[in-house]
């Protein structure tokens, strides 16, 4: 099963670094600015709810879309966000502005992606750059309040460091889990994901030859 994850947030908060840490277990000090968009895939076993035991776990392919912080939906088009199963909002704990912009990112995502159930569409919030705790300018409490205000249920919140690999795996797993339970709750969401077929590895079949 393929789940589409979209990562949004201001420029320079560490979206590309988080993605690379999660998919490749790597961190570089020299990431270029993302221009337009990019995506990586990763396969993971994942349960639809937190209490599920191993036997209930499904093999999912996470297709994770990284976007340019400056792009603000304008160039990528509505079609790009349609069919997203979960959205990860990222800010930088040393940049209050990037936290304040979470509102804009959330609203713009809902407007452009127009999921069938706007109220319950799953978001995960990531506060990145925990390795720079000494430069912190956004208190944990403040972010937790924001999360509580913007969700009817619980909006999961993780403080991560892409550099030190702190909580990155947990945050993405949570996102996958929410996407999966969303998919099982809403049958009308599943057909959209069927058009995405498999991972790049399976494009090689030669069955149609005479």
């Amino acid at each position, binding site marked *: 099963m393929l789940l589409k994850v979209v990562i949004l947030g201001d*420029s*320079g908060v560490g979206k590309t670094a988080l993605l690379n840490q999660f998919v490749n277990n790597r961190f570089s000090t*020299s*990431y*270029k*600015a993302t*221009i*337009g*968009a*990019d*995506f990586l*895939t990763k396969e993971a076993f994942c349960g639809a709810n937190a209490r599920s035991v191993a036997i209930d776990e499904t093999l999912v392919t996470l*297709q994770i879309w990284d976007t*340019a*912080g*400056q792009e*603000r*939906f*304008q*160039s*990528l*088009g*509505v*079609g*790009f966000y349609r069919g997203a199963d979960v959205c990860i909002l990222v800010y930088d704990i040393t940049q209050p*502005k990037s936290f304040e912009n979470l509102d804009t990112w959330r609203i713009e995502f809902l*407007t452009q992606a127009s999921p069938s159930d706007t109220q319950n569409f799953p978001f995960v919030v990531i506060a990145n750059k925990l390795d720079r705790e000494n430069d912190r300018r956004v208190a944990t409490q403040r972010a937790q309040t924001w999360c509580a205000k913007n969700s009817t249920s619980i909006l999961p919140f993780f403080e991560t460091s892409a550099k030190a690999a702190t909580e990155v795996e947990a945050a993405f797993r949570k996102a996958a889990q929410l996407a999966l339970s969303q998919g099982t709750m809403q049958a009308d969401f599943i057909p959209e994901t069927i*058009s*995405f*077929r*498999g991972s*790049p590895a399976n*494009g*090689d079949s030669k069955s149609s030859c005479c």
Partner: protein
Amino acid sequence: MEDQAAAAVLAHIEDQPHACLERLEALAARGKLPIAARGAAWRLFLRAVDPQKPKSWRRALADDRSAYAKKRDDALRRLKRVVDGAETDEALEDTADQIRKDCERCYIDGAGDHFAEATRQKALFDALLTWHCTSGDYRQGMHEVLATIWWALERAQGAASLYCPAPSSPLHALLPSADDLEADAFSLFAKLAAVTRPIFDGFDGMTPSPHRRPPAVELCDDVQGRALAAVDEELHAHLERLEVLPQIYALSWLRTLFGRRYVADDVCVLWDALFVDTACLSSKMVDAASLLVVWDRSALLRLNAADDCVARLLRPPAAPAPRLLVGLLNEKTGRRLVDALRRRAALEDVLGPSVVGAVLGPPDRTASGLSEEEDDYVDAALATLCMSGGSNVGG
């Protein structure tokens, strides 16, 4: 070598500017412009000086440099007032932050950590802020374009170290000067930004709709649509059928003027050709981008899902040698490339890709063994790509 070649090309620029410009354009269009002549050539191509009036060059460049110094001081002063709270301009503060972040992570392939150096970063920041305050909206990608111009000027200057025209001559004025790198890079960047406007134009604060799309996205559509269809109907139909969104892969190619596809020295060769006749710069860029899609046609045609194609286009194999791309652009048809790649794919089907790779070499090395002097360079490069003896492949 380099400075001698440049000296030969530029020798008559003062008494026969028209003929000399034509010669420079012809070399650039074939990917054969000497590195040491690049700074002078770009100034002429982008009309940073009037090519027909050599006597005006010294004055024009001096005026440009002092105008830049003044504009930069104004921009920095304005930013300081905003930062100090004497003036409110949240948008300017945000953009300045954006530019700073981008300059701090300006890694140009093939330039090592040249731009990690603090004074260069500061110079790039100042120039981009100045441009933003005086000429248009800064967009990501511009930082790498400016850095590449900077790189080309520094390289030209280094290559020309032995080449000293009389200090009072117009040609001397035209060559890059170490003391004025920032102002000169700014001036070329401003000219280039003006002619590449559609690539960078955004839609700030506007909701996209099927009827109103940013010009950059329309150019991306042209890459996979008009331009690709003109040379490779099969691949065009394949990508359209899968509904691949071209802006996802093509935007970063266009916004960096292919800086994300080539190392710095190679992208400059491509730029030489693009800057000849800037009136059709956008359409040449679209054609070049579509040829880069064609370049990987065999792999793309085997993929049967949009996401797989996009993934491949986002992490493509090495691009063709810049001289081959430039040569094909100049011919205004990439059909011969399609034919050569079809033949190569047919060989691969029979012999297997590894055998073909071992015998013919990797595709991007196609041009490496060919002489710089070769006049039928494109014919020869295409022939070595697919082991075809004759020119006029597919006639």
